[in-house]
């Protein structure tokens, strides 16, 4: 309607709508002119969005610091407030609140706590503005890009925390109480600036009770798995289900299985985006063809390609499907729908042909990345909170509350564990040194989750051949390798 009346204000001959007085026309023109003038003026003002917080690094000078003592080795300033931003997902955030309560009591300081699933969107503007919270649990689908943060100097170097005495035993450094792979994974270059607090065991999850009741045994090889799937299908159950809405859940097993068969050296080539890393790896072929076979024989619960992780876990809890690719947070996350006698258990990776890594190899990775902001108000307090969390008391609290392992070595010794956690610690112990750690998803989430995830979804729906999956995956990896706007990383071990 606006345009038609505007036309009536014009000077078209024979126009019937010209009764609007010249005064009104003037007014419209003048306000339009005013608007035009305002635009460039605002352009000058607008320099502020990218202008704040940068360069000068004014934040550092105001960082709170106190006196270093035996009880307070990092030198936390008493009474200085602390702010923690905790990812509240499968593990909740109560365990962090418990540690914060101890901090509050020891240092008589206010601790501001936020539990959220939107770490990235909520904190990006605060980092850009130069006032980030002190401690961040940067987990979940919407997490912050830690590589960018690290290269741009936003992350506190946690070396002081590693060298501080542990809370349980002053003779022992924190460094010596946590798993070596936690330290390895938390490095950016030579700086340790990310503390992966938890330990996630990935694998094939199942109900021990269901397997026992039917007389089935957890398969040792990929071929045995296919054979067992045939039996399960005959029994009227679906052998597998998965979270089709988030295909990267399938990658937890698929990628690790590739590394187990093809060997770590060849997986590292994949992590490093080397040319032909996917196409030249026989492990890739074996594993992807295995999934192609599962799809062709319809061994996936029908409709899995549209399920969320929760829906797939629920279907699995109800016994509609036997196996589920997942991580050890599943026990806590699916607790509301898990029957009491479910007997949750996890199995290690399967053997293929000519495997580079032995039977029992497991993908177990440090998880729940905790960051301390270098430019926050209280980075020392942030490190101290982590030191409290790394004590035996809080590691055990974590195991009880959320049924997951922490990076604190042997913290759960002597405790009675829940079935899933007990099974996870058992396979973890059995795997010994043979632990697989993958970086690809951490480094290039757009590649793994969106691109390869899309292909995997098609593969499992039976709409994509294994050979095409491999070819297209290689093409996507090559594209990222060539893309100058994506920060690249290298690993050697």
């Amino acid at each position, binding site marked *: *309607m*606006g*345009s*038609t009346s505007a*036309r009536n204000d014009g000077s078209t001959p024979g126009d*019937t709508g010209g009764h609007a007085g010249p005064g009104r026309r003037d007014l419209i023109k003048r*306000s339009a002119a*005013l*608007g035009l003038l*305002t*635009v460039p003026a*605002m*352009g000058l*003002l*607008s*320099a502020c*969005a*990218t*202008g*704040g*917080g*940068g*360069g000068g690094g004014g934040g550092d000078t105001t960082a709170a610091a106190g006196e270093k003592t035996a009880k307070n080795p990092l030198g936390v300033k008493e009474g200085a407030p602390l702010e923690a931003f905790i990812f509240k997902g499968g593990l909740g955030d109560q365990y962090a609140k418990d540690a914060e309560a101890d901090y509050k009591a020891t240092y008589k300081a206010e601790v501001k706590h936020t539990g959220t699933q939107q770490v*990235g*969107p909520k904190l*990006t503007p605060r*980092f*850009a*503005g130069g006032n980030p919270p002190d401690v961040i649990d940067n987990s979940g689908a*919407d997490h*912050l*890009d830690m590589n*960018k*943060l690290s290269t*741009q*100097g*936003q992350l506190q170097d946690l070396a002081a925390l590693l060298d501080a005495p542990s809370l349980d035993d002053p003779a022992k450094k924190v460094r010596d109480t946590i798993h070596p792979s936690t330290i390895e994974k938390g490095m950016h270059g030579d700086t340790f600036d990310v503390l992966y607090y938890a330990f996630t065991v990935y694998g094939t999850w199942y109900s021990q009770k269901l397997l026992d009741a039917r007389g089935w045994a957890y398969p040792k090889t990929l071929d045995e798995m296919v054979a067992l799937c045939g039996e399960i299908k005959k029994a009227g159950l679906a052998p597998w289900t998965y979270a*089709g*809405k988030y*295909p990267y859940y399938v990658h937890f097993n698929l990628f690790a299985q590739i590394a187990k068969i093809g060997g770590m050296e060849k997986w590292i080539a994949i992590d490093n985006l080397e040319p032909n890393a996917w196409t030249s790896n026989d492990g890739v072929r074996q594993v992807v063809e295995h999934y192609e076979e599962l799809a062709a024989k319809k061994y996936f619960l*029908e*409709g*899995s*390609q*549209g*399920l969320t992780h929760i*829906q797939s876990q629920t279907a699995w809890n109800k016994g509609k499907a036997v196996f589920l690719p997942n991580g050890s947070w599943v026990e806590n996350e699916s607790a509301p729908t898990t029957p009491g006698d479910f007997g949750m258990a996890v199995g290690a990776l399967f053997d293929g042909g000519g495997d580079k890594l032995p039977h029992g190899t497991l993908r177990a990775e440090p998880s729940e990345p905790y960051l301390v902001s270098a430019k926050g108000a209280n980075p020392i307090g942030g490190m101290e909170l982590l030191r409290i969390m790394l004590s035996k008391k809080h590691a055990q609290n974590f195991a009880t509350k959320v049924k997951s392992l922490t990076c604190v070595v042997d913290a759960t010794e002597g405790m009675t564990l829940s079935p899933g956690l007990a099974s996870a610690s058992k396979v973890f112990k059995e795997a010994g040194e043979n632990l697989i750690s993958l970086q690809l998803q951490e480094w290039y*989430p*757009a590649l793994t*989750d*969106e691109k390869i*995830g*899309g*292909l995997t*979804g*098609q593969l499992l*729906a039976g*709409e994509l051949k294994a050979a095409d999956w491999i070819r297209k995956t290689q093409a996507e990896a090559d594209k990222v390798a060539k893309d100058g*706007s*994506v920060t690249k990383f290298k690993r050697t071990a």
Partner: protein
Amino acid sequence: MQHGKYRFIVGFLAPPLLIYAVFVVSPFVQAFQISMTDWSGLVGTARFVGLDNFVRLWESDEFWNALWHNVSMLAFVPLVTLALGLFFAFMLNVGGRRRKNEVVTGVAGSRFYKFVFFFPQVVSVTIIAVIWFNIYNPDPADGMLNSLLGAVGLDGLQNAWLGEKSLALWCISAVMVWGHVGFYVVLFSAAMASIPRDIYEAALLDGAGRFPTFFRITLPLLWDTVQTGWVYMGIIALDAFALVQIMSVNMGGPDGATDVMPLRLYLTAFRDSQYGYAAAMGVAMLVVTMAFAVLTLRFARRERIEY
């Protein structure tokens, strides 16, 4: 009373203009500025890169794929929504059986229908998305649509819906139509109410049925409203962010089948930390939306009938 006129006008115009400038114009201008930098969004500094982001955008398959989906929805969603809205509004106001002393009436129970149609409009889009996500749940027992199909014996039509590459975008478009029809029913009803009854009376005396009445009288007299609705609905189809973000498999999947421009922008900014590139997408979206609005208003223009 001439002397105080300008002070009066400025006094009234300045506050809204200032608010408009700060909250609407300045972010727009800033988006242009940021689109020419490589700003990560995480620190306060950025490098000027000229038009590099736009070149990248032009060469990006993903962006064209997303744009194509928006354009497909633009062709489908407004047409279906407005057609249904017009049809229902006509039936509710004019399409009823003739009764005594009334020239035109709606179908029986039209007040109730009006309420039901409007209902999705008062529910937030997030809730709509979550509800429909569960309706589309592929589980034959838990998914409402699939179990309904099963119950009436149409098992063959059971589907993974949002997990099906060829269906996913249309599943989401259908929700968009469902969510907006009610608003247009009410809007068109209001516009129809202002059409003088004697025009209908004259048509009836000439023996016009429902169809000629609709196409010869109602639609031409509603044209301005339809045109506005078209632009508004088109802008909604060019967005679609919330529905796609919540409902789609693997964020715009399966395999990119439901990707839309705003989702691309969101992922580029918040997942990939490339705010400069994301801002360039925003600028491109502005261009597309503006072009659509201008073209629609330009070509849909018709003679206006005064009544």
